């Protein structure tokens, strides 16, 4: 004997007498009736359990997170680049300023040296006259 095929066919289980037997039989009948009713009802297409939607949601979420993270990294990188460029420009400006200052100082020193040298080598304009006056005073 194999599994019984007909829903309405109910066997008696002699080893379960009396009320228990009745209860088991009724239980079987009710499950069969319930299953038959559900099985024979018109079926609507069961939508797949939104797996694709969940996967798309996850993918979109990942893209957004990755995009946000990379945008943040990119912005940070840009800021770093700008500040580095500003630092370099400032350093160059300082260097130019120092060079200019040094050049000005050298020019001034040179001019001062020339003035000193010229004043030592060339007599003052009135010096010969002063010498003549000194010679006239002699007896």
């Amino acid at each position, binding site marked *: 004997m194999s599994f019984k095929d007909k829903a309405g066919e*109910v066997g008696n289980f002699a080893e379960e007498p009396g009320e228990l037997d009745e209860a088991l039989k009724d239980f079987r009948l009710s499950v069969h009736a319930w299953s038959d009713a559900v099985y024979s009802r018109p079926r609507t297409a069961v939508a797949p359990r939104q797996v694709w939607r969940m996967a798309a949601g996850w993918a979109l979420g990942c893209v957004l997170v990755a995009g946000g993270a990379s945008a943040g990294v990119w912005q940070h990188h840009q800021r770093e680049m700008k500040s580095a460029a500003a630092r370099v420009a400032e350093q160059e400006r300082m260097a130019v300023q120092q060079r200019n200052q040094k050049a000005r100082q050298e020019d001034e020193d040179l001019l001062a040296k020339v003035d000193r040298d010229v004043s030592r080598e060339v007599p003052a304009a009135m010096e010969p006259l002063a010498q003549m006056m000194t010679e006239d005073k002699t007896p």
Partner: protein
Amino acid sequence: MAMAKEIAAEEFSAVVARHRPQIFRFLLSSTRDVDLAETLTQDCFLKAHRNWSSFRGESSAMTWLMRIAINLQKDHWRNRRMQFWRHTQSNAVALDEASEWLPSGERSVEQQLLARERVGQVSKAVEGLSERQRTIFLLRYVEEAELSEIARATGLSEGTVKAHLSRAVARVRAELGGKR
């Protein structure tokens, strides 16, 4: 070769038409979830179709299919225990609601009420059984399978099946006795 395949396909179609309602009924009574029972029934026949060429007729097709269904149900419980419970909490029907489907037959109203109450008590006891005991109980008392068939379908020895069945029936008896 093509002819053999065609014959096999026809045979399988006949097997599906013959046994699908019964597999669905077993899975429905086990899971109490119509959607899940339908999904597992589909999975069962899909798996059977893939392995149809390896079915050698050592047991009946029904026993073979029932074994696949039991394994699928077991896998479902094992792999998605948390999701399963979350799912069943929302979709499952209390098994005693099945008592509302009890055919009235030629009983009086009082007898019908009494019968429904008894079915509700059996359902409650069945819900409290372990997964294995429930499977064996349902195969025996809903699907009316022989002990040897249950043993083949579950992969247990007949002695083990008897022991589980005995405990399950004792629990049902206690539930019926306790409510009186």
